[in-house]
C-alpha cells in the first residue's frame, strides 16, 4: 500500500502539471492511446555518434508530436512513443533486436537503424515479419534491389550523393572537364563513386582516375600522389568522415590543387570544420539536407528548415546535422502515412507509404516501387569562410558557389 501512496502522489502531480502545460496549445491529454515505434540504434560501437544523432532526430519528432496534439488516426488521437535498443553498431545485433521488438514487444512500426549495413539486415527481418520500416540512414541502393516491400528510405540513394556536385559543376565557368574519384571499398561508397562516374561520363566529362581504398584506412598518400600526377579539375571522394579529413590534409601536405574538392560525407559535419579550420574552406559536400535549404513543408509538422534548425538547437543545444534531419523525416513519412491510411494496421500503413507524396522541411518524401526516394535531389554545401552554405540546387541555395578553388599557396 505504501508503494502505491508514495508512487501515486508524484504521478498525480506530474499528470496535473502536464495537463496545465499542454492544455493551452493542444488537447494532448485527450489522446486515445499511444502508438509505439521501435528502433535498434547504436549507443555503443563504431557508429555510436551517428546512432545518437539518429535518436535525437527521432526524439525531436516524438516530443513535437506529443506536445502538438498527437497523431490523428481515423477519429482517434494518439500520442507516440519510441522503444529503443542498442544494436552495438553490429548488423546482426540490429536484426536480432528488431525481431525482438516485433515479436516480444509487439511493435508494429520500425524506425531504421543507422547505416547501410545495419539497415540491410533490418530490412530482411521486417520483410519476413511483414512490418513496415522507414529509415533515414541507409542509402545503399543494394538494400533496395532485393524486391523488399516493407522498407522505405527517405534519403536520396547512394548513387546520387556526388551527382549534385557534378550537376552544379556543369553550370560553372570554366566548366571542369576532368574528374578523379577515390572511394572507400564498402558497398555504399563504391555505389557513390560509380554513380558519380556514370554521371560524369554521360555528361561529357572525363574520369581520369577511379579507385578504391580500404575503408577506415590510415594512409591515403598513394591515392593522393596518383591523383596529383593526373592534375584533374575535380577531385571527388565517396567515403567517410575520417577518410575525408585524412584526404583533405594529405592534399594540402602534397600541394594537390584542383578547381573543386568534393566529398560525399564530411563537409556538413561540424567536426570537419572544427578539425581542419581554414583548410576546410572552399570544400564542397553532397548533402541530403542543410538547415539553410529553403523547402516549404506540408502542415502537421515544422515546414521550414530554418525553423526546424532553431527549434532543434533549442532542445539539444546544437544545430541539426543532416543525420538528425533525415531521422526526423523518417518519422514524418510514418506520420503522414498513418494519417492517410486512417489505420494502425501495418499492411495499410505500408500501402500508404508506397503512395506517399508529400513535401516536408527535408524535401520531398515519395518512394519508387523499391522503397527508394529517388525523387529527392541531393543538395550541395560549400564551406565559405568557415560557414556552411547551401550552393545547389538553385531553388534552395542561400549562396553562390565560390569557384574555382585557389591553389593552396594562394589561400
Amino acid at each position, binding site marked *: 500500500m505504501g508503494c502505491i501512496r508514495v508512487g501515486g502522489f508524484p504521478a498525480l502531480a506530474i499528470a496535473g502539471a502536464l495537463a496545465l502545460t499542454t492544455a493551452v496549445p493542444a488537447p494532448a491529454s485527450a489522446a486515445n492511446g499511444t502508438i509505439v515505434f521501435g528502433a535498434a540504434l547504436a549507443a555503443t560501437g563504431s557508429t555510436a555518434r551517428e546512432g545518437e544523432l539518429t535518436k535525437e532526430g527521432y526524439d525531436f519528432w516524438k516530443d513535437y508530436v506529443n506536445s502538438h496534439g498527437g497523431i490523428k488516426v481515423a477519429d482517434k488521437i494518439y500520442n507516440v512513443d519510441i522503444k529503443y535498443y542498442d544494436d552495438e553498431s553490429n548488423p546482426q545485433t540490429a536484426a536480432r533486436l528488431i525481431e525482438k521488438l516485433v515479436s516480444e514487444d509487439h511493435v508494429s512500426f520500425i524506425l531504421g537503424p543507422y547505416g547501410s549495413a545495419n539497415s540491410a539486415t533490418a530490412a530482411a527481418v521486417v520483410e519476413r515479419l511483414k512490418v513496415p520500416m522507414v529509415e533515414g540512414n541507409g542509402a545503399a541502393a543494394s538494400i533496395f534491389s532485393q524486391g523488399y516491400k516493407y522498407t522505405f528510405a527517405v534519403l536520396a540513394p547512394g548513387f546520387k550523393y556526388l551527382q549534385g556536385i557534378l550537376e552544379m559543376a556543369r553550370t560553372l565557368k570554366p566548366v571542369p572537364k576532368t574528374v578523379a574519384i577515390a572511394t572507400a571499398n564498402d558497398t555504399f561508397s563504391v555505389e557513390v563513386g560509380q554513380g558519380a562516374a556514370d554521371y560524369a561520363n554521360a555528361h561529357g566529362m572525363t574520369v581520369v582516375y577511379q579507385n578504391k581504398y580500404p575503408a577506415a584506412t590510415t594512409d591515403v598518400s598513394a591515392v593522393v600522389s596518383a591523383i596529383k600526377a593526373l592534375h584533374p579539375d575535380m577531385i571527388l571522394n565517396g567515403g567517410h568522415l575520417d577518410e575525408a579529413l585524412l584526404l583533405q590534409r594529405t592534399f594540402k601536405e*602534397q600541394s594537390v590543387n584542383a578547381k573543386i574538392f568534393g566529398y560525399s560525407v564530411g563537409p556538413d559535419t561540424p567536426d570537419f570544420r572544427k578539425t581542419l579550420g581554414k583548410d576546410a574552406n572552399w570544400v564542397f559536400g553532397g548533402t541530403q539536407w542543410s538547415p539553410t535549404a529553403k523547402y516549404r513543408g506540408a502542415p502537421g509538422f515544422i515546414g521550414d528548415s530554418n525553423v526546424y534548425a532553431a527549434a532543434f538547437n533549442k532542445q539539444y543545444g546544437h544545430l541539426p546535422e543532416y543525420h538528425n534531419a533525415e531521422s526526423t523525416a523518417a518519422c514524418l513519412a510514418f506520420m503522414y502515412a498513418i494519417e492517410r491510411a486512417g489505420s494502425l494496421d501495418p499492411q495499410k500503413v505500408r500501402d500508404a507509404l508506397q503512395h506517399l507524396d508529400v513535401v516536408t522541411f527535408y524535401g520531398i518524401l515519395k518512394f519508387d516501387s523499391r522503397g527508394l526516394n529517388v525523387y529527392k535531389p541531393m543538395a550541395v554545401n560549400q564551406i565559405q569562410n568557415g560557414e556552411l552554405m547551401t550552393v545547389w540546387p538553385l531553388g534552395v541555395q542561400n549562396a553562390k558557389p565560390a569557384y574555382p578553388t585557389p591553389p593552396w599557396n594562394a589561400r
Partner: protein
Amino acid sequence: MELFAQDLVNGILAGGIFAVVALGFSLVWGIMNIINLAHGAYIMMGAYTSYVLFSTWHLDPFLSLPLAFGLLYFFGYGVQRFVINYVVRAPLLTPFLLTFGLSLLIVNVALFIFHGDTKGITTQYSGSNISIGTVTIAWTKLWTLVVALIITTGMQAFLTASRTGRAIRAMALDIDAAQLAGVRVSHLYAVVYGLGAGLAGAAGVLISLSYSLQPSMGDPFVITAFVCCVLGGLGTVQGALVGGLLYGVLEAFGSQYVGTGLQDAVALVVLLLVLIIRPRGILGKATA
C-alpha cells in the same frame, strides 16, 4: 619515376610512426610474452592527451610528447603491478584476454568522456611542406620521422647502457637466472609494461598530428604493431624500426602498384612469406 620516389618517401615517413607503434608492443611481447591488445587503447590515450593539451593550453603536440609518455608510463606501470601481474605466468591466452578486456574498458571510458565525435589537431604548420625535385614532403611528417628515430635510438641506448636496461635484457634471456642474480622481476615487469604503454602514448601523440582522433582510433594500429614485430623480429629496438619502415614502404608500394584496395593485403602476404622463410623475423635471433 616521379610516383616511385614520392611513394618511397611516403612509405618511409609513415614507417617512422609504425616503428614507434611497434616498439612498445615488441618490448612487452618479446620480454614478457604478453600480446598486449590494450596497446591500441594506450595509443588513443596518448593522442587524446595531446589533443586536450593542445585545445586547452595550445601546447604543441611535439612538446606534449614527453608528458604523454610519462603519463602513460605510470599508468602502464600501475596496470601491470596491480592487474596483469596476477596472471603474468598464466598460459598465453589469459593475459591476452585480460588486455583485450582492458582495451574495451579504456575505449568505452574514452567514449563516455569525449563522445564519439571525430577530433583533430591542426597546428599553424599543419600541411606546410617542402619540395625536393618532384617529391613533396610535409614538415609535420618529416619531424615525426625525426622524433621517431630519436625515440628508437634513445630506447636502444636505455636497454644497452643503463643498469635497468641491462637487467631487463637479462630477464628476457633467463628469468630465473636474473632473479637469482638479484633482479626484482615484478618491478621490472612493471617497468617494461610501463615503457610499452609510454611508447604507445608517444606514438599516439605523433599519430594525432596527422590523423583524426576518436576513441577506437588505436584498434587498427594493434594489427600494424603485430605485423611490424613479426616482420622485423621480436623484442629488439632494431627489429621494430626495420619492421615499421618496411611495413610503411610495402604499404605505399602495394597500394600504388598492386591496387589501393589491397594495401593491407600486400603487407600481409609479405608477412606470410617472412613467417615461412624466416620465422624469427628479419633481425630476430634464432632461439634454441
